Each structure stands twice: as structure tokens, then as C-alpha cells.
């Protein structure tokens, strides 16, 4: 209940910034339209493979938006005032994160609609695709909380660039297996490639849960760790 009051405020601020909101959906959509033109060169650019990668790119943008909101708040006395409210750190993290969940869902739905219009077919279970992407979205939102808790307003863009590169080199719109070597080793450590592999396997190959379980649990593990770390880091800044 108390978290919802703060979540409502974050939600209002998100919706009162239509330009950012339009960019959050518009930029990934534009990338999807541009990159699919390369589909004849590599399967990775065909709508069925490309759409999940672009959805993850959209999540990176949401992560950036959340991190900027939190880091900006941290530099204001409003934040100190909010911290005097009787909320625990997990309630604050929920309040900041919650508004980004519906935005992530709308964004993913819009991009999947464009992907479908371009010829993408989901051969596997749609619910499974949704499950993987919801967990992945929570992972990115958790990352946004961590970045916003650790970095200043001015340095958040550097963290954003790092996470964007990791997402791209995780195979968002490049073929990790074709690059191979150290890129693939590093890519396999992080959850980005696993989220993409799992989503693409369901969409392109029609894989079931058993086939993608190891990738899925890899992402779940990272998501849990990210949320726990986000709560810990927020708690640390509640008192100096």
C-alpha cells in the first residue's frame, strides 16, 4: 500500500515525459525495421531472431530511464524526505521498479506486433516466451536500480553504455557463435545471451521448457541476485 503511493509518483513522472516514452518504444521499433533489411545476409537479422534482440535493447533503455530517475532523485532533498517515510528497502525498490513493468510489457508487445507484421512466427509456446521476457525485464529493472543506486546522474550513461555493449555482444543483433572466441566465452557468462538463446529457441525452433531450462535458470539466477543486490544497495543508502 505504502509502496504504491511512491510507485504512482514514479508512474506519473514516466507518463508525463512522452518524448522519453515515445523514444523507449520508437527507437527499438526503428532499429527493428532497419536491421530486418539485413535478413538476407544473416538469419540473426530475420524478424524471428531479431525481435527478441530488439526487445532486450528496449529493456536496456528502460533500465537507463530508471537508473537516471533514481540517481537524479538521490541528489535531491525530496529523496531524503521519502526516506523518512516508514518503508523498508524492499518496499522502496518495489515502488521505484513497479511502474517500469507495464512499460516493459507494452514495449515488448509493440515490438512483437511489428515483428509479426514483418513475418515473425512464434512456433513454440507464447506463454513461455512471455515468461522468459518478464524474468528478463525484471533483471534489467533490477540492473536499473543497482546502477541508479551506485552511479551519479552524470555517470549513469557510462554504465548504460557498458550494459548496452554487453547486451549487443550477448547476441542482440550479432551472431555470437559466428564471432566465437573470447566474445562467446564472456557472452556465455552473462545472462543476456542465455535470455536471447532461450527466447529464440522457443520462437524459431518451437522448443519446449525442458529444452531451454538451463538458459532460463541462468537468467532466473541472475535476476534473483540482481534484485537482492538492488535491495541491499538501496538499504545501504537509506542511512549514512
Amino acid at each position, binding site marked *: 500500500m505504502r509502496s504504491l503511493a511512491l510507485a504512482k509518483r514514479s508512474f506519473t513522472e514516466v507518463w508525463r515525459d512522452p518524448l522519453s516514452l515515445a523514444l523507449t518504444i520508437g527507437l527499438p521499433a526503428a532499429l527493428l525495421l532497419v536491421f530486418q533489411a539485413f535478413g538476407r545476409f544473416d538469419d540473426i537479422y530475420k524478424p524471428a531472431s531479431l525481435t527478441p534482440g530488439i526487445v532486450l535493447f528496449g529493456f536496456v533503455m528502460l533500465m537507463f530511464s530508471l537508473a537516471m530517475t533514481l540517481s537524479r532523485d538521490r541528489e535531491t532533498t525530496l529523496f*531524503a524526505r521519502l526516506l523518512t517515510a516508514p518503508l523498508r528497502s524492499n518496499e522502496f525498490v518495489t515502488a521505484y521498479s513497479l511502474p517500469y513493468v507495464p512499460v516493459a510489457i507494452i514495449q515488448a508487445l509493440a515490438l512483437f506486433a511489428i515483428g509479426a507484421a514483418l513475418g515473425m512466427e512464434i512456433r513454440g509456446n507464447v506463454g513461455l516466451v512471455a515468461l522468459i521476457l518478464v524474468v528478463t525485464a525484471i533483471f534489467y529493472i533490477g540492473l536499473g536500480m543497482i546502477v541508479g543506486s551506485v552511479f551519479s546522474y552524470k555517470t549513469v550513461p557510462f554504465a548504460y553504455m557498458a550494459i548496452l555493449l554487453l547486451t549487443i555482444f550477448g547476441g542482440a543483433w550479432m551472431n555470437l557463435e559466428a564471432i566465437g572466441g573470447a566474445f562467446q566465452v564472456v557472452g556465455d557468462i552473462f545472462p543476456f545471451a542465455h535470455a536471447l538463446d532461450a527466447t529464440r529457441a522457443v520462437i524459431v525452433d518451437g522448443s519446449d521448457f525442458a529444452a531451454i531450462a538451463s538458459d532460463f535458470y541462468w537468467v532466473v539466477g541472475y535476476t534473483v541476485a540482481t534484485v537482492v543486490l538492488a535491495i541491499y544497495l538501496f538499504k545501504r543508502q537509506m*542511512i549514512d
Partner: protein
Amino acid sequence: MTAAERDRTTAIETIGLVRTFGNVTAVDHLDLSVNQGELFSLLGPNGAGKTTTIKMLCCLTRPTGGTATVMGQDIQADALSVKAMIAVSPQETAVAGNLNAWENLELMAGLHGFGRREARVRSGELLELMGLTERAKDRVKKYSGGMKRRLSIAMALVSDPQVLFLDEPTLGLDPQSRRAIWEYIETLKGDKTILLTTHYLDEADALADRIAIIDDGKIVALGTAAELKDSISDGEPMVVEAAGLTGADLDALSQEYSDVRPIEGGVEIRADEVTLYDIQDVLRPRGVIVQATYRRPVTLDDVFLHFTGRQLRE
């Protein structure tokens, strides 16, 4: 008074409260007791430790030493309970600029567990009281400084706190806005326990039931404004109006009186035994004409000077 009786009447109590930042001691063994319903003022210059004290009492800064309770709850062990009973209006206007006044107030009410309907009613009352109703639907970033400050105080009140911390509530405001906020704070006296920090002497003088003068993190004097003024043994300062005083003239006066301070158009002398004739005896041979002398009432600035050896705004 028994411990139980003290708990019933004491709203804020600090015992040996300390906060250091590296080698700097911001709050130095602060012992403080504020009664329920009292408006207590911490008066001191910037950097005296006022805001750090408030931050510790609001559970935002961890004490380095000592203990403190708010309405009987320990600020470290029972931080959530303390937070449920307090509200703070920070030094800078702590408002959400992209929200309107309604939304700002409902945000704070919601964070303190008020339902939507009750939050709406309380917000409406406070908007009316603070004269913000007409602009209540405008985004707050378009408000003047005075309006933001009034809203900031309203945001502290909307949760109906038992203890209210007002950190420099009129800092940087024009006299009219200051007066309006003073009038409102007056209406809260007796109902809420208020800890007000200020470096405005007139503010503490006008509003506070009791004043603690704080300097370098320590309380150097404590009492009502009248008690503090009476506590100065120097008596009322003598104002000597004499144009064109030189440094040498001041030196000559200083040889006779230990506390001589130049002021605009003359000099102030703090000494019990001093008359117009005594001053003329010093200045007339030096060719200085004394236009007038009079005793002026003791102010809190004199009290501050007396206890710290410097003026508040030095």
C-alpha cells in the same frame, strides 16, 4: 519525576549524541530533552550541527556515539516506529517538481499509510491553509520559492506527525512569506512537538518555547528567550552614536572597556558601569563628538556572542 512520567512528557531525548565525519565532529555529545507539544529551536550558524542532529533524529544519519529516542522509540533500534511518528521539512524545498501540489501531498500521505479518501481530505485542508488551492493543479516546478516552501511544510504535515522537524523553514524567503509561515507554525504550537532549526535570531525569538544555542556541535546555552537574555551578566549594550570614528578612537575605547564593537554610525560597548560622561571623557579629547548614547535591549545575538565569543553571522 519517574522514568515513566518522563516518557509520557518527553518527545525527543538525546544522551551524549555524537556524529563525526572523518576528523570533523559535527555533533559533539549532545544532551537534549524536548517536551511533548513544545516548539524547541536549535539556533546556530551554518555548520553548527543543526541539520546533522535532525538527520540523526529522522534516522537518516547514523550516530557515531550516544543514544536518542523519539516518542520513546530508539532511533537506531526502532527506526521504522520512529519514522511512522515523524515528518520533516528539509532545508531545501523537497518537492516533486513534475507533480502538482495535490499529487505531492497525496504521495506523502500515502507513504504514511493514509487511504485515498483521507489523503484527499487532508491534502485539501492543507492546500487551503497554505493558500495554495488556486494553483494546486499546476506542476510544482512552476511555483515561486515561497509557494514551494509552503508546500514543503504542508507535505510534512499531511501525515499528521506527532513530531515535526522543520529545518530552516524560512531560509531565503521574502519577509512576507516568512511572516506567513511563522503564523502557521504558531498555530501548531501545543498540538505538535516541533524541533525547528534556524540561524535567524528573530525566528527563534518569535516562535520558540525554548532555545538551544548550538555551536561547533555543542549546546552552549539553553532556555527560553527571556532566560537566555537575562543570563548575560553584561547587561544591555550601550550604543554610542558618533560619526567618523577611526581605528585609533576604537583603540582608545578598548583600553577602557573590554568589549567594544564598531557598528554603523558609531560603536557598541558592553559594560555595566559606563555612562555618557565616561565615553565623552575618552572621545572628546580626540575631537569626536558624541551625538547620542542609549542602552538597547539584549538580543539573542548578544546571547550568542556572549557564549561563543562571536556573532551569529560571522
